[in-house]
């Protein structure tokens, strides 16, 4: 999470699939439930409208499967669960993400100088 609690929307978009796969690895969920779970984690900028197509994309790519379950609100809920391919993808992206964080952390953790050094002639 950023220090002021605000996340860059482009960054979020890039890691949304990873977050969804990770949440689905814990338990099967439907669209709105996943949105609320993301919000509870502090990712309040994630809009419902970006989560629903992302789930569709994961399903198209075979990383999740779905089933319809009747609900009290009327319309049936579409529950998503991780497939074998999804587990493999989660492991793969998870490792890639951790590697990226490790690579960037030494640079980003340094204090930012007031003025960049000039190139030597």
């Amino acid at each position, binding site marked *: 999470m950023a220090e002021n609690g605000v996340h860059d929307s482009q960054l979020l978009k890039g890691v949304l699939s990873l977050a969804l796969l990770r949440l689905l690895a814990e338990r099967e969920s439907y669209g709105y439930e996943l949105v609320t779970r993301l919000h509870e984690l502090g990712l309040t900028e994630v809009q419902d409208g970006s989560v629903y197509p992302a789930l569709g994309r994961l399903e198209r790519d075979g990383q999740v499967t779905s089933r319809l379950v009747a609900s009290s609100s009327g319309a*049936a809920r579409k529950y998503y669960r991780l497939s074998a391919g999804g587990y493999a993808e989660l492991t793969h992206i998870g490792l890639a993400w951790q590697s990226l964080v490790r690579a960037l952390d030494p640079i980003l953790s340094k204090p930012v100088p007031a003025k960049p050094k000039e190139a030597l002639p």
Partner: protein
Amino acid sequence: MNQVALTKKDRARIELAVQAVDWKLNGRVPRARRRQVLNELRGNLIEAAEQVGAENAVRQLGDVKALASSYLELYRGRFDFRAAAFWSFLMYAAIQILGLALFFAFRAGVAAGGAHGASYSFELWPGFGPFAGKVSASGNTFEVLIGSPAHILLVMLAFIVGGAYRSVFARRRA
């Protein structure tokens, strides 16, 4: 969290958002898939509305056009009926404009030739079209083809090519 009972107004607000998405998918996404997508969206919106109110639920959805574009990108069918209709209309309009231009040129030719009496007609591929016209020497008769076998053939061709070219190009790129 407390559940909010939905009013007719809430349901109308939700349906409006669903229909806004449907407007962009209609004719472009296969019907069965479209129904699935809209049912899921409607279900999620109802769930959200029961938690945070319909207005907030729709607001949380974000840009509805962007959402519809995402769905379109994901589920676009092989044939785009909207594009097909657009291109066939454009083809018909182009034939008619060209036909009228030919007709006026022919009429100007008749007038410049100093013809009088009788009427003069021109036709490309008699009985097939698409261009044919008739003009009297006095310029009072005004006739030009509005439909012919060639019209039908060209409009059908535009319909097929216009509706399918995107998926053909997408397959080539892939």
